[in-house]
């Protein structure tokens, strides 16, 4: 197992290298010049050229790449063109809100969707099944901002239970932290509840007619144990895959939800950096997202072994 993990981790290196080259080249090929943006409306060509020189953007692309890559190998991701801060500092400051939102969203989504999916499978064809599947379709169809604004209108403006927007760091108080995270996490979890409930239902239905389920029932196991211990465990592999992808997507940034609820997360940092053509920041966050995807895929593969002992690495 350890050897497998090491091999997978080593295999991430060429992946990251390809991503680094790809992102670097894409950014240089995309229209938009950070120097012109920094120079502002009243600048003439000379001033723009001067800024380009100071940022090192007038160097040949290969030279720019090797300087960036060499610095990155030393853990230096550079300084943002706009913020007078290092990229590492910027990302670090945005990591907590993104992680917090992702974790709370996944907890809500899994906590609600898995029992719902199992219940829908158990009651296949019944009203409960139809309601769960109906909610699932709705969850996919309604845009996230509509859900967000609706929740804000009800719980913040009409009932005045929760704040409209903002993020409070855990260090500044857990109550406030949770209170500001509830609405965005519920908003985001709707689509994941829909997705995971659907997958759970299908997966559980697939195993409900297996011999071991019949055996468990014949042994006199109570139905809830049959469902959650025998059926769900054997149906878990596709569910874990979907949850893993969901976590990766969440950490990769959920721009709309972050904007609607004013959460200073990585999604908004990425969009702001792209709009401003802040090359060092974009390069670093895309690399980070790629790394997250690779690591979460590895984690999902490892979790498979817990649910299915036949899987060996």
């Amino acid at each position, binding site marked *: 197992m350890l050897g497998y993990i090491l091999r997978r981790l080593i295999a991430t290196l060429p992946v990251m290298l390809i991503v680094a080259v790809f992102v670097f080249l894409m950014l240089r090929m995309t*229209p*938009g*010049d950070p120097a*012109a*943006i*920094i120079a*502002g*409306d*009243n*600048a*003439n*060509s000379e001033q*723009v050229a*001067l*800024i380009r020189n*100071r940022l090192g953007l007038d160097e040949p692309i290969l030279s720019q790449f090797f300087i960036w890559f060499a610095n990155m190998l030393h853990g230096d991701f550079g300084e943002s063109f*706009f*913020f*007078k*801060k290092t990229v590492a500092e*910027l990302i670090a*400051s*945005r990591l907590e809100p993104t992680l917090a939102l992702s974790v709370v969203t996944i907890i809500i989504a899994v906590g609600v969707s898995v029992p719902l999916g199992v219940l829908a499978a158990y009651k296949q064809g019944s009203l409960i099944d139809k309601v769960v599947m109906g909610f699932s379709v709705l969850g996919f169809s309604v845009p996230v901002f509509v859900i967000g*604004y609706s929740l*804000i*209108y009800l719980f*913040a*403006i009409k*009932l*005045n*239970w*929760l*704040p*409209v*927007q*903002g*993020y409070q760091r855990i260090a500044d108080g857990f*109550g*406030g932290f*949770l*209170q*500001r995270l509830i609405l965005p996490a519920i908003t985001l979890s709707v689509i994941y509840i829909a997705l995971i409930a659907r997958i759970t239902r299908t997966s559980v239905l697939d195993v409900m007619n297996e011999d071991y389920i019949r055996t468990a029932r014949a042994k006199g196991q109570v139905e809830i144990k049959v469902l959650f211990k025998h059926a769900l465990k054997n149906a878990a592999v596709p569910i874990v895959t979907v949850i893993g992808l969901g976590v990766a997507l969440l950490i990769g940034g959920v721009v709309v939800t972050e*904007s*609607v*609820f*004013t959460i*200073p997360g990585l999604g*908004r*940092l990425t969009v*702001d950096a792209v*709009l*401003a*053509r802040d090359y060092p920041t974009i390069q670093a966050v895309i690399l980070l997202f790629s790394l997250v995807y690779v690591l979460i895929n590895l984690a999902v593969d490892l979790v498979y072994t817990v649910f299915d002992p036949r899987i060996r690495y």
Partner: protein
Amino acid sequence: MVSRLLKIVTLVFAVFAFGGVANGKTLRVALHSDLKIVDPIWTTALITVNHGYMIYDTLFALDQKLAVKPQMVDRYETSADKLTWTFILRDGLEWHDGAPVTAEDCVASIKRWGARDAMGQKLMSFVADLSAPDAKTIRMTLREPYGLVLQTLAKPGASVPFMMPKRVAETDPQKQITDYTGSGPFIFKADEWRPGEKAVYIKNPKYKPRSEPASGLAGGKIAKVDRVDWIWIADAQTQMNALINGEIDFIEAPPHDLLPLVAEDKNIELAVFNPAGRQQAIRFNVLHKPFDNPKIRLAVAYALNQKDLLDAVIGSPKWYIECKSLFPCGSPLQSTKGWDDKFTSDFAKARALLQEAGYDGTPVVLMQSTDISSLSNLAPVTKSLLEKAGFKVDLQAMDWQTLVTRRTKKDPLNAGGWSAFLTSWASVDILDPVATSYLNASCDKATFGWPCDAEMEKLRDAYARETDPTKQKAIAEAVQLRLIEYPTHLMLGQYVQPQAFRKNVVGLLEAPSLALWNIEVK
């Protein structure tokens, strides 16, 4: 039963107060942008100008009526030949770190700003010597009389001559400063600044306000709150919701189409604090067909009309005026001389001009910024009106940053070049022919579009040298008439941006830039 349950839940949530009610000494504002750069000399970004007015002070400033008034300067005098200007600083001015403000600090500040700002560069081109004979005296010796010394030192809008300590002002003008010590009414809390989230300012207890009442950006700047939080809320609808819910006290730039949401709210008020507002404009690239011909550019003035363009962007006439003056309506140089018959969508006249100019059907490559709603809406209306006049228009959509880059390119139209784009600017940035950068017609040295007209440059230069306001006004009118012969850009109407604030916020000032002093949260 349901109402009892609601009461219980409300109580539970009340245990975790979320700060919906302001502490009486903190003002929470949502501004038009996130504060990304904190060096107001290095960038022309409006949000950084707002930041500058919080923590720095200026030698001179514009009052509510846009008249120049001394600010850090106590008194000043000019020699009879108008070549030597002497400015004496007020007593007791201090930097945030407690050190006294000296004339040497101001000289270094003017030099750094003068190396970056277009108006500053113009002023410095007239300056033979800038010195500090003693701690409170700044002496500026000119090579020849210059009519805009005070207007330049008092300029608001983009790139304001803010005063900084000498050690800060000696930073290379092409590099950002890292020391945010100022002498303004608030102190920047760099340790609490979280880009993308918030910027925090606290009251400067050492600030010595002028004795006159606050007026515009001049007069006594008294910080009446202990703390100002700039909360960055990217989503306009969320800004409105936060204001309604009492989570913020003030919105600087609520979109016009969302104003009805709060217009009827008994806790919220709408008001305009910058009546000069903004002017919409179309900028031409004179290097390539079809706009290399001034008559074809003039045909655009006949094809367009300001009402349609303002309706598309602002909607309610309550917030805009049709203004055919080159310099903003309401400003000292306002005049419609020569322009009354234009912006009437007189398509027959526009077609006649096109024919006279030999327009060969070359498409106008009109760049449309799609991520700024006001500019995005302008473009299709402009296209439609131009086509009705006989132009062929190739509308090309892109984000603003792509547009900003592309407009610097002089390439031909078939190689990524452009013919025109639409923009808007603060009226205080275009108060006279020198300040209006789009009137710069010095060919390669001009900003993008590169107009090249010796006559226009002669008039701008004459304006800069003229010291008599009456004669200046006459020259400004001549510039406006010259614009008919040689259009560098066209003015497409003027609008104001109302601010939305809770009624417990009092003392907001009418000013050409955002002024957050003098405000109380009751």
